[in-house]
């Protein structure tokens, strides 16, 4: 087993698009690290650079203590599972799982044993002699997983392996992957754009989430850390369903009622002694409340109401900026009406204009 370290990794594609900016990341030995980010944030590029499928423009990749930046994939001893289950269509499941062993010249007897072992671990020993096109989607991804674990690599790379599966299967396989991680104790890097998945996979002991945005790692931490203490406005916006409301505003130290922030149609009184000028104010939807007109910190228009059963999401327009409120149960709000807004002042996040948290 081995750690994976990225040092000042950067990648510029042929078209001149910079996918990674001087990125540093440490994945500890035996850790399950979830790379979370919106599409285009560079998470797959990181994975491909670690795998050796992509050559970084600058920086280094270390597996264990070894610099492998220029090594071909076969020399790195890592396994990768792709978004679509990529089985070789002309080989049976057994031959598929045996393929990486054969490529390394493993002895025949050992191959047979390890193939059966891997297949049993993933619960697919019964389909070993079938061809991939006769398998169900779930069986196919399990076979791909078996092919990844069969040679016991130093690290596993998962590139959104569950995103193409239906919800039920996804939950099932997620649990199995976690069990696999515990059982193998292997280093795993798991890429996803789905934060529910990220929270589940990165929630256990010795597990962390790294949030990516535009080719930079914004924050690495436990689910609680990134939810409660977002490292910047991007993390705040991305994490949570729906993400944090972030309003462009302006701080004023000398209002009639002390220092306030004006954001859209809202005027929020705050304990802010040192700051004036452009800033961004964030608040989670669950801490936004509605009240009668002129009773809160400002008035807003109701745009869309989403009654979800256990809660109701209300999309509001505050002077041109979007604001979402999450209300418990079914809330009696009409689209097109004007309502007042209350905010929990203790739950405000303040960022400067560049998105860095204030104090």
């Amino acid at each position, binding site marked *: 087993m081995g750690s994976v370290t990225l040092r000042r990794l950067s990648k510029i594609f042929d078209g001149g698009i910079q996918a990674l900016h001087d990125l540093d990341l440490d994945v500890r030995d035996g850790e399950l690290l979830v790379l979370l980010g919106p599409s285009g944030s560079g998470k797959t590029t990181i994975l491909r650079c670690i795998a050796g499928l992509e050559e970084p423009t600058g920086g280094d990749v270390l597996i264990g203590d070894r610099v492998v930046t220029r090594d071909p994939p*076969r020399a790195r001893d890592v396994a990768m599972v792709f978004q679509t289950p990529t089985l*070789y269509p002309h080989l049976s499941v057994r031959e598929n799982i045996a393929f990486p062993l054969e490529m390394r010249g493993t002895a025949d007897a050992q191959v047979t044993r390890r193939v059966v072992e891997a297949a049993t671990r993933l619960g697919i020993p019964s389909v070993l002699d079938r061809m991939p096109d006769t398998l169900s989607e779930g069986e196919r991804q399990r076979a791909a997983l078996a092919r990844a674990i069969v040679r016991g690599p130093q690290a596993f790379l998962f590139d959104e392996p569950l995103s193409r599966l239906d919800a039920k299967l996804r939950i099932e396989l997620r649990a199995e992957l976690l069990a696999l991680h515990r059982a193998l104790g292997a280093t795993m890097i798991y890429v996803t754009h789905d934060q529910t998945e990220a929270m589940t996979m990165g929630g256990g002991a010795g597990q962390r989430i790294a949030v990516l945005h535009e080719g930079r790692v914004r924050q690495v931490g436990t689910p609680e850390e990134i939810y409660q203490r977002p490292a910047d406005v991007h993390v705040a916006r991305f994490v949570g369903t729906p993400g944090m409301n972030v309003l462009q505003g302006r701080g004023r130290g000398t209002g009639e009622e002390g220092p306030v922030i004006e954001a859209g149609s809202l005027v929020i009184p705050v304990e802010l002694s040192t700051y004036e000028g452009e800033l961004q104010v964030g608040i989670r939807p669950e801490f936004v409340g509605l009240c009668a007109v002129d009773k809160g910190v400002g008035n807003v228009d109701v745009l869309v109401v989403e009654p979800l059963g256990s809660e109701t999401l209300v999309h509001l327009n505050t002077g041109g900026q979007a604001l979402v409120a999450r209300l418990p149960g079914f809330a009696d709000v009409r689209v097109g009406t004007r309502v007042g807004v209350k905010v929990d002042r203790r739950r405000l996040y303040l960022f400067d204009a560049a998105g860095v948290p204030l104090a």
Partner: protein
Amino acid sequence: MRKVLLGVVAVGMVAPFLYMVSVSFMGEGELLRWPPPLLPHAPTTGNYSAMVEVLPYARVLLNTAILAGCVMVGQVLTSAAAGYAFARLRFPGRDGIIAASLAILTIPAILLLVPRYLMIESLGWADTYPGLISTELVSVWGIFLMRQAFLMLPREVEDAARMDGAGEWSLFWRVALPMVRPAVTALALLAFLDQWRSFLWPLVITRSPRMAVADVALAHVHTTYAGNLPYQMAAAVLLTVPLLLICLCAQRYMLSGVRVTGASVRL
């Protein structure tokens, strides 16, 4: 009613072949009758036994099979390798080379006939198997057919194979090539049939009857026994039957071949 019409048209299309078979059983005397008979008066197999010896049948089949077989293997291997390089490898000058290969497609066979003949002649390969086969071993059309097939392969399978530790050669031989099997069979079949029926080049480069391939031997029979139609028809039947058998055996692949190549350009 329409279906009956289909049948009639079908029989009309096949009629010349049926006539060929019919004449091949006629005795020489029936040539003199007017109007010419459609069916042999007194069927005889004498034409066939004469032709088996004259051609000589076994040798001609062997020559044709050697030509078609070697060219098939050669074209499949070189086309697969070059097509793979064009489709899945990045290297400087690739686009230029592809354009140059397309330009080669515009060279008609007739332009190459004389210089190739002179070349093979000066190598001392005239009237030998190397002379017959060597010029045909690469087909630019086949290269592009294979390139098209390799382009269709998903990138992720290639990545997966690399992760599994496959080197460039295993990637080609163990993963990519088996995945384009329909294109390979189509190319193999077409190359085989093309060569089995090739005429002008074997005509030019072989001289002796023991080097003759099917069509050249048949043309010899035609000139040697110009007046003896039953002889000629018997030889034609003898040389058509193996071709038909091959086509029958390969019928399944023929269909896939049409599917693979149907839309692509055959130059």
